[in-house]
């Protein structure tokens, strides 16, 4: 069966090609959009008082004297050599900045995702148990609140109550100052670094600082996941095999856990994947309120500064996350659903 060996390879190659094309298009569009920005990057870099000579030289140094397609070609050429350029807003190589900010966001978003996945699916199941019942109503209000309360407001209230008043949680930032500037946080993953450091209290302190931003970020995602899980379960509940199961005497618990969940897991998995991807790029407000040095804040600062190299670098990282998460989800859904094989 030659196709049996060839097919996965062809599929893999096709997948990689799609991925690379997607990323290239993403970069091209981002580049074109950032060149339309009404902010003059040279002026941003030099300030308002600079002389005409410095201004002209800065435009040349930033390559702004060339038309944007030519600038993009130059950027793409450097990118192929692994050079993401230097950020005009931090003064550091973009690759170094990203190595620092991405783990912060990845850690936050991943834990928030795990929390919202667990709670969201559970609440969705509870809600679908007896649609229209009291429990369903309560869960729907909770999920609506989670996805409609502004994240910065929820974040500030959480900080005020659990950090400033009750002292239950750590404050803004990733660690207390006693740890933050004495430990070697070289991987960028604060849980991993504090665990490896062996310093007493550091690992627990990292969790104390993660708790609030994780919960605030998860509150939004829980709303999404709950509502989608509920809708998927109820959509499936009207099908004939469910009626048959019910006729054979199966209770709602058995029907949901043994029939509906396995049959909707592809859909739920897709929702979870999309939510995860949005958490990775959409944590700007939570990162701002909690002084979390993540990729969302990095990108926002770069956008306000028309810092093209940083915008493209961060977009590329987020784009890669989307592509990888989507790819993995597709593969997982395929593996779980025999109809798609």
């Amino acid at each position: 069966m030659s196709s049996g060996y060839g097919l996965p390879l062809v599929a893999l190659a096709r997948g990689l090609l799609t991925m690379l094309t997607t990323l290239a298009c993403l970069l091209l569009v981002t580049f074109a959009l950032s060149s339309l920005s009404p902010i003059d990057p040279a002026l941003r870099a030099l300030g308002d008082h600079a002389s005409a000579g410095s201004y002209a030289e800065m435009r040349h140094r930033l390559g702004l004297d060339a038309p944007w397609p030519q600038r993009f070609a130059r950027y793409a050429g450097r990118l192929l050599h692994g050079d993401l350029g230097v950020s005009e807003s931090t003064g550091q190589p973009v690759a170094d900045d990203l190595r620092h900010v991405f783990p912060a966001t990845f850690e936050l978003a991943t834990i928030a995702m795990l929390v919202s996945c667990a709670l969201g699916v559970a609440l969705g199941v509870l809600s679908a148990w007896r649609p229209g019942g009291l429990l369903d109503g309560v869960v729907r209000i909770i999920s609506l609140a989670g996805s409609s309360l502004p994240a910065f407001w929820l974040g500030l209230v959480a900080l005020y109550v659990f950090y400033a008043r009750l002292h239950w949680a750590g404050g803004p930032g990733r660690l207390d100052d006693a740890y933050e500037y004495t430990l070697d946080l070289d991987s960028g993953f604060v849980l991993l670094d504090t665990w490896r450091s062996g310093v007493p209290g550091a690992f627990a302190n990292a969790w104390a600082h993660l708790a609030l931003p994780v919960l605030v970020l998860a509150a939004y995602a829980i709303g999404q996941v709950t509502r989608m899980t509920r809708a998927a379960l109820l959509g499936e509940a009207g099908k004939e095999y469910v009626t048959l199961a019910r006729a054979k005497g199966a209770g709602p618990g058995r029907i949901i856990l043994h029939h509906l969940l396995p049959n909707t897991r592809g859909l739920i998995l897709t929702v979870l994947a999309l939510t995860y991807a949005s958490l990775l790029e959409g944590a700007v407000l939570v990162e701002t309120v909690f002084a979390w040095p993540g990729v969302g804040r990095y990108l926002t600062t770069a956008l306000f500064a028309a810092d093209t190299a940083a915008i493209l670098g961060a977009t590329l990282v987020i784009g890669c996350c989307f592509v990888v998460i989507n790819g993995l989800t597709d593969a997982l859904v395929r593996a779980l659903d025999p109809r798609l094989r």
Partner: protein
Amino acid sequence: MNHPLSFLPLVLGAVVAAAPAEASSPPGVLVIAQALDDLVSLDPAEGFELSSVQTFTNVYQRLVQPDPDHPANLLPTLASRWQAEPGGRALDFELTAGARFASGNPLRPEDVVYSLSRAVKLNRAPVFILNELGWNAGNVDQHLSKLDDRHVRLAWDAPVGPALALSILTAPVASIIDAREVLAHAVGEDAGNAWLRSHSAGSGPFKIRRYMPHEALVLDANATAPGGAPRLQTIVIKNVADAATRRLLVAVGDADIARDLGPDQIAALGRDPQLQTLAFPSAMIDYLMFNTTNPDNAALRNPALWEAARWLIDYDGIAAKLLRGEYLVHQAFLAAGFPGALTATPYHLDAAKARSILAAAGLAPGLHITLDVINQPPYGDIAQSLQASFAQAGITLDVVPELAGELYTKVRARSEQAVWLYWVPDYFDANSTASAFAANREDGTKTVAWRAGWRIPGLSAATAAAATETDPAARALDYLAIQREVQQNSPFVIAFQARNEVVVRKNVRGYREGLDADMVYYDRISK
């Protein structure tokens, strides 16, 4: 098992087990919560943002520096004495005996020559300050010379008197760096720029221990600083972009100082007995500018509009009620505290007077003017107040809030109609501001007066003459006259002088800020 619920006990267990946070900053360490997102570079030849120039004051020294308590007096710093050459176009400096950099390297004339020459040749944002001396990449080396092991001569061609030259040398860009240390870290032709962006090589009271871009800056005491060791061992400046979060940090005690808070937050914290609010007048002035070159609105060129506008700002209402202490009413371009500052405030809100001025000039009611403002506090509030007061004279202001970068791009291209802006002097001397507001040489130099399209050959000459005046009293009189002309007859309506309010914990002593943007001093702080 891939059931999602299996992760729940792990996560919840860890959160519950987490220790509660300590609610106080570590002893011997001062924690400052402020916004650091503006910081691009910690190389004194390059950094020109508030956060970077304030760091330079604490990490580097210049030959001479303003006295923190009386900034009009210059203090010998890395130079113990100086003398102007008879022609008034050169200064000889004697370097302070025994001065050393934080690295342990002694200060040499070569360090002075290298620092200034490097700043000019690197040609980054703040270089225009040194360019005022006529120094450029091609000629700077001819103007800087080592006389002997303790003396250095700095000469210049530009029409600048020795007093102004000394003021220019107090700017952060004229910081003296440890040439040997920097050159040891140079890569290719970068003159150590990549390294200096996040490290220090100075002689100031502190040195940079660690800089995490847009996250935190950690400074350690420099025990051998020529001006004496600072009182605290470590300063941590944390980037907390959200003002409400900064407020929480200082209230809880995890930060000792919170900067850049809004009037509401300051008022709320004022009731906390553990905190005190310090207020420092700043040299920043806020002004309204009409762009007389805008072809779409002829009224902008009419001096009657400028005159009427002076009577259409609710100065006291904005300063006292809207911004509650963040601004003082001030109507001249030199901030109070500068030698020669004009402190008279002849204008107040008088809509009837404004209406009669407009009517006499034939400017009919129903005039529309687009006003660009930065979309950050407090400019939105100020713009709303202007809208209301200008409406009383029949002028409709169409307010366009936008990003600072966008607004500056427009102003530089002279495409706006009117704009509300702020101005911060680049060094402690009247010339820094006068040469912007009262000089339009029409030679390609894009001063503030050029941006407004204000044609002033006579006033430009007076401003140039004041720059070469050697007698301080006569110079102050020159600037008083120049300010009066700008106050009464220009397309600028200068309205306010800013006041920086800082909330500190009660146990923190010795925090000081001066008038100029870079004048933030950490060396005398104790807690």
